[in-house]
């Protein structure tokens, strides 16, 4: 069972520390790195220099589908396919369609929001090298981490370690993952 260096994990005690550390790492010019916190830490977006989230767009378009789909469905079913005289009203009347148009818009938007988020985050991903280490368990509790992946071009066992220690990390650890036969697709999944 060959092992391979997957990522460096640096642990911090407080949000304050990890925020500063993140700024350092970013200065150091790493690309494939991440911060792990039990709750979203404010100012981290800037610290990591992340661009705005794209969830909004997904929601917008799914919502659009919902509202137009609803209108189309009702117009065709009641107005075109089998127009019936109901209460002496015209077979297809817009006012009556409004509530359902709204509901379907909301419904599809909601789906768009959640699944869009999951998609952008490439979740669900139940298996991740980072889970190899016991240290990481506290990431969801009260500790703060920075991880730098080995795929990162600037990744270097020595330098990266040094850089992370320079950020007052409470602990720096190299996480290794065991390689399997399906190496190939494992690789491509990283890219």
């Amino acid at each position, binding site marked *: 069972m060959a092992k391979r260096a997957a990522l460096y994990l640096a642990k911090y005690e407080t949000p304050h520390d990890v925020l500063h550390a993140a700024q350092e790492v970013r200065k150091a010019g790493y690309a494939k790195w991440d911060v792990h916190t039990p709750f979203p830490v404010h100012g981290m977006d800037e610290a990591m220099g992340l661009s705005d989230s794209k969830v909004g767009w997904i929601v917008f378009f799914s919502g659009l589908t919902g509202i137009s789909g609803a209108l189309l469905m009702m117009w065709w079913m009641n107005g075109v396919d089998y127009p019936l005289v109901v209460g002496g009203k015209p077979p297809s009347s817009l006012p009556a369609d409004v509530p359902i148009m709204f509901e379907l818009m909301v419904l599809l938007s909601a789906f768009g929001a959640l699944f869009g988020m999951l*998609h952008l985050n490439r979740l669900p991903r*139940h*298996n991740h090298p980072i*889970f190899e280490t016991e240290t990481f368990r506290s990431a969801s509790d009260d500790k703060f981490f920075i991880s730098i992946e080995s795929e990162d071009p600037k990744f270097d066992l020595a330098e990266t370690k040094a850089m992370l220690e320079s950020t007052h990390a409470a602990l720096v650890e190299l996480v290794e993952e065991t390689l399997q036969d399906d190496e190939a697709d*494992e690789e491509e999944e990283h890219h």
Partner: protein
Amino acid sequence: MQIFPRALNKLPVYAALANVVVLVAVIGIPWYYFSPKNLQVGYEPHQPVPYSHRLHAGQMGMDCRYCHAQIERSAHAMIPPTQTCMGCHAVVKTDSAMLAPVRESWETGNPVQWIKVTKLPEHVYFNHSVHLAVGVGCVTCHGRIDQMDVVRLDKPIAMQWCLECHRNPEPNLRPKEQITNMTWTSDQAPPGWKPPEVHPPTNCSGCHR
């Protein structure tokens, strides 16, 4: 420590695929398999008397209304009484084994227990007379009965199918004298013949009362 195998990371892909499959199944399967087209058409029960429409209506060319008398006056299909059969079979094929049930019925007075082929739901009120009156041919709903040795259900008799014609009857209309003609096509229409102006009901009480 990993809880799940790496393979599970493909989950999203599988989930997406599964979704599509289920969706298609849920809508598609009932749509097709529960449809009269699939469940009704081809119903071909074994009748107590192997009466052959092919022989009587086809080869001998008897008019449908010879047996199904009064069908132009009544709502019902007018399955002929034993009397009608005996009209001929008192002299023709008097000892045919196949006709035994008919003769028995004639003697005992008990009816021949025909099996219903063209079954409508019981809340549907179909009226033969009016359809014939406007010139809907037998063949339109019953198919080439003159080619059937055993009567089989030929058309998906369901609301949707009825509506197709009720919404656009013209293609299914013919001159009144042609209603029992199994082979009539619109190009045989006499010159200048126009399908009559019928306005079949598409509202509920047209068929449900």
